[in-house]
């Protein structure tokens, strides 16, 4: 096994461990962790079984195998970022609704001097 392989495997295992730790501690929801686990596992496969990347590159007709990694992970991250923007927009709406409800409830309880309604 090459030196770089060992480094890659250790790095990926560390990365997967970090993700697992975040999930266990409740800092990361499982639905947002799936993509990271998948990416970690892919990296692990590539680093343990080095030939797999060449085989895959051959299959897709990619001349320079490492570029496959770049395009693949670039694409994955791109999709995930769009997903996060969608989640963000949804939360924006939810927070707005909550704030409006709170304002209404505060108003119903009455402003300090007078009943509101």
């Amino acid at each position, binding site marked *: 096994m090459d030196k770089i392989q060992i480094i890659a495997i250790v790095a990926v295992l560390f990365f997967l461990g970090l993700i697992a730790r975040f999930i266990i501690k409740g800092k990361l929801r499982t639905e947002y962790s799936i993509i990271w686990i998948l990416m970690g596992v892919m990296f692990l496969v590539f680093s343990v079984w080095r030939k797999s990347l060449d085989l895959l590159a051959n299959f897709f007709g990619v001349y320079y195998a490492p570029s496959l990694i770049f395009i693949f992970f670039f694409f994955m991250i791109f999709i995930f970022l769009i997903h996060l923007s969608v989640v963000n927009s949804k939360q*924006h709406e939810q*927070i*707005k609704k909550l*704030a*409006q409800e*709170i*304002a*209404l409830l*505060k*108003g119903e309880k009455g*402003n*300090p*001097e*007078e009943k*509101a*309604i």
Partner: protein
Amino acid sequence: MKLKELKANYLSNPINLGIGGTVQLGFIYAAKNNFDVAIQMDGDGQHPPSELHKLMEPLLNNKADVIIGSRFIDKEGFQSSVLRRFGIDYFSKLNKYLTGVSIKDSTSGYRAYNKSAIKELIKYYPDEYPEPEAIIYLTNKKLTIMEVPVIMNERVAGVSSIRRFTSIYYMVKVSLNTLFLHLKMKTNG
């Protein structure tokens, strides 16, 4: 402080929701209390309450579901700056192109709504720079909009929610919003 001295009913958001979310809160309040009419008026002195009857009259006579107070029909009172007028005109033209409805003062926030308009506004109201987009929304909801001449003043306090009217961001954002809202409503009804 002044609000409390006036002993008026008021609502305040726990967090800043911007102009759109706050105005919509007013509509939600109106709907919850079964109000017949909701009035939207700037509190910075631009919209004199003495002009309100000009909006109320056509609304109460069922001339339209939404009445918009306009500076540009009789061209009286404060007319805003050239650049702002250019922007207002642009959105007015965009609205006319998309819906066929021509509202000259597309960014005017001096408006009166009846019950059917309130019912739609609690479902959707744009967050930022809501005025031109709201026209598209209400028109697509088959509500009728009427523009009446009112005299407005220059604001005496505060700043416009459209602080950089000339900024590309404002134009692009409202244009995009308007286009997408129109497409969405054309496809979903």
